[in-house]
């Protein structure tokens, strides 16, 4: 509704429109296609949402502080941010369920807190995070409840109501469930039913609180596709989404909320930056582009505590005291030998810990090489020294010398699925000088490209493969083997061991194999208590 008519006018207009819809769809049989359903609902004009200076507290605890957000008609805005940032509270304030202490919320230029719940429920439909539906209403009746704001007290469901309900069931693919009791369908199906209820409400604005929280990956995508469709066919949507990748993929803009304030608003690529995520989530994460969807992908890395512990280890080794207040002066030097995605992932994690990194040998176009190039290009990173070699060529004397120098200079050496064709053995030979290499092993050695069958197929390949294998197994045996997500803990262990001569108290470190939790970072009490951080934890909201 572009003009702002009196309620009765709006009512009449709506009814006329719905009658038109009804007569249009009434002639169609069940074979009505999705496109026709689409045109049927395009009668809705999306509304603008303007949040201005919103502050809200629960008792003494401020939850939102001076939050402003402007959503254009027909826009899909994702609200992202860590747990407790106030995402749900913001949505509840926009829907009118919570009275703010200060500030206004206008939907379609109507102050939702100044009008009756009936009036606001004609403007905004809400898909809550959880709905109490533990009673035996049939699915269709639950969807019908979405029509409540449009009906007068004594009316029976009108044809328009019935049409809106059936359309909503169709769109959410819940028509088959329509006669099943709501308490007998799965959680994912329920979520779709609640979405159907919101669709049947036929409001110009839609608010969704974690619409994908309880869904499996398939239904997450399906649900957000549907919201996207609804937005494209004439609705405005604001959704709290904890999955940053999905938010980047489906939202026009993102609002990053942190500590009850809007940290940043803008396109996903402008909001989801390493620095912004570090500030908002207090997490280390790298942002890359998903090669399939072309949208931002966020990879969270172990938290800052582990990162700091590495720097502290180095410091303790050189200054011989426990002065943790003193910020790290020289970052530890780590050399990475590896190829493919495992090495790329390890490299990102090491870079996030702000270590002095070198990598190689790598061939141009390898995932690890690309990661190194990207990290060097980033302003926040000091850059990664990269030893590039030509593919399928023997290791040159220069490259060999450089590699030897790098390994010698490094405080720790990491192996991550090294697969360098026939040269693997010669590269690993240089690692023999490293007492405790950190080994990340995600692929069986024999499965790695070039491990046993060489690139050019010379007769010595099989022999070289055997030598490489023996050397690799030797590295694994004396080294510290860790999964990719725990590489920082592994490096921390290696670093603390390398400083052992100066700190006899640390003599009792594990003899080999996988590192144990509490010894991963012995110099730092915090991280010792925390234990290893599971991967991707900080990306979960």
């Amino acid at each position: 509704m572009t003009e702002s008519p009196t309620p009765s006018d709006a009512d009449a207009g709506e009814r006329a429109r719905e009658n038109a819809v009804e007569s249009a769809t009434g002639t169609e049989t069940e074979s009505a296609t999705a496109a026709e359903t689409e045109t049927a609902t395009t009668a809705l004009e999306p509304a603008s949402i303007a949040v201005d200076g919103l502050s809200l507290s629960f008792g003494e605890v401020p939850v939102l502080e001076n939050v402003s957000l402007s959503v254009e008609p027909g826009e899909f805005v994702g609200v992202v941010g860590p747990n407790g940032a106030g995402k749900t509270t913001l949505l509840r304030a926009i829907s009118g369920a919570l009275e703010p202490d200060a500030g206004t919320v206008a939907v379609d230029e109507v102050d939702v807190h100044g009008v009756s719940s009936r009036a606001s429920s004609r403007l905004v439909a809400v898909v809550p995070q959880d709905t109490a539906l533990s009673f035996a209403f049939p699915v269709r009746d639950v969807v019908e409840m979405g029509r409540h704001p449009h009906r007068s007290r004594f009316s029976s469901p009108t044809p328009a109501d019935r049409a809106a309900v059936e359309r909503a069931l169709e769109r959410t693919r819940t028509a088959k469930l329509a006669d099943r009791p709501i308490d007998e369908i799965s959680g994912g199906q329920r979520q779709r039913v609640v979405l159907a209820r919101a669709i049947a409400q036929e409001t110009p604005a839609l608010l969704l609180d974690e619409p994908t929280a309880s869904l499996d990956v398939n239904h997450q995508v399906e649900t957000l596709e549907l919201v996207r469709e609804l937005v494209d066919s004439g609705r405005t949507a604001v959704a709290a989404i904890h999955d940053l990748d999905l938010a980047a993929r489906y939202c026009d803009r993102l609002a990053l909320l942190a500590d009850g304030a809007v940290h940043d608003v803008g396109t996903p690529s402008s909001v989801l930056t390493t620095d912004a995520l570090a500030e908002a989530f207090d997490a280390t994460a790298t942002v890359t582009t998903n090669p399939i969807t072309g949208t931002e992908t966020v990879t969270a890395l172990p938290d800052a505590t582990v990162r700091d512990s590495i720097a502290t280890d180095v410091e303790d080794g050189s200054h011989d005291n426990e002065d943790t207040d003193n910020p790290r002066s020289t970052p530890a030097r780590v050399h990475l030998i590896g190829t493919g995605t495992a090495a790329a992932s390890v490299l990102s994690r090491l870079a996030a810990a702000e270590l002095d990194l070198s990598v190689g040998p790598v061939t141009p176009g390898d995932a690890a090489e690309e990661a190194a190039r990207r990290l060097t290009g980033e302003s926040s990173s000091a850059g990664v020294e990269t030893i590039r070699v030509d593919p399928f060529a023997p290791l040159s004397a220069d490259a060999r010398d450089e590699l030897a120098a790098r390994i010698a200079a490094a405080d720790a050496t990491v192996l991550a699925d090294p697969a360098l064709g026939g040269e693997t053995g010669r590269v690993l030979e240089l690692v023999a000088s490293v007492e405790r290499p950190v080994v990340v092993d995600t692929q069986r050695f024999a499965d790695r490209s070039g491990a046993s069958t060489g690139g050019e197929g010379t007769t010595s390949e099989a022999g070289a493969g055997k030598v490489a294998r023996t050397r690799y197994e030797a590295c694994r045996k004396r080294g510290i083997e860790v999964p990719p997500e725990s590489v920082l803990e592994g490096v921390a262990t290696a670093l603390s061991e390398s400083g052992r001569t100066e700190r006899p108290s640390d003599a009792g470190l594990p003899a080999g194999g996988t590192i144990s939790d509490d010894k991963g970072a012995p110099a730092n009490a915090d991280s010792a208590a925390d234990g290893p951080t599971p991967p991707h934890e900080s990306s979960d909201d």
Partner: protein
Amino acid sequence: MYRPGRTASWSAGLTVLLVVVALGSAALGPVRIDPITVAMAALNAIAVPTGVSTGTTTVPGLGFSTTVPTLEFTGVFDFEVTGSHQLIVETIRLPRIALAATVGFSLAAAGTVMQGFFRNPLADPSIIGVSSGAAAGAVAAIAFPVLAPFSSVHLSAFVGALGTAFLVYGIATEGGRTPVATLLLAGVAIQAFLGALISYMLVHSGDDLRRAVVWMMGHLSNTTWGDVRFALPVALLGVFVLGAYARELNVLLLGEEDAHHLGVDVERTKLLLLALSSVITAAGVAVAGVIGFVGLVVPHIMRLIVGPDHRILLPTSALAGASFLVATDTIARIGPAEVPVGIVTAFVGAPFFLFLLVRREVHSL
């Protein structure tokens, strides 16, 4: 999707059942009267207003007289029924049956509303202390007529019931909001307090003990048309308005925030539902005493049969409650010695409810 026709046909069927049960009940008693005679006598009792006269009447319980206009009634039918049978049916059995139907109607409707309102299958009309308040008022009027504010037991019970409801609501309300859980807890606490008060009064009630205990067990003996004239309009009007809020009740089952998002003025609706169910319960309890189980069991049984939608559940529960109480009251009065109807409802209702529980047909709303 809700079909109004379904509600209409179920309601019509249950009304027919109520009439049949009522006629059957009126035929039973120390004097057996065949159903045809009962039907004729009942029709003879129907009168329509044909004029207005003025006279004085005494306000019950307050003890002063006032001049009021009185309608003059004239009978519509004139079937041939012996005088004694006409007297038994018209002045003894029919008022009692009508009151049983009215009270059953009110209690079942109020129980349905309370179970939906509290989203709790254990809720019944007395959950916020209405019955305890009525009992306290009635026992006070019976045992200490000098101290009770109203000498009429009915009035005292009615005032006690509504006073308790408002007290509980007031305690649970803060800043314009009434959380359902607080309401429930406040109701339980007030009930416990009133229970102690009632026990104290019973201990010191002396010769009135038996009368007080019988009242508290629920009784419909010595019913007059005056009782029906008090309770029936309240019940009909109350249930009608509650029925108008049936859709809100459905939406409230989704939770208060969802209900708000679907356009329900939550606090106002809650107050209205609570006030109306308290008033109809209070009116029923004031004239019939505390009758348990009707408000708990009948809504559950009807929910099993017609489903959870209050648009059909509320009217059908009310009508089924009416039949249920007429039937149980018949059992209560036709035995060798009359027993309070509250005993019969619990005696019949509890095993039936347990049977449903064991069959796992009642598990939630």
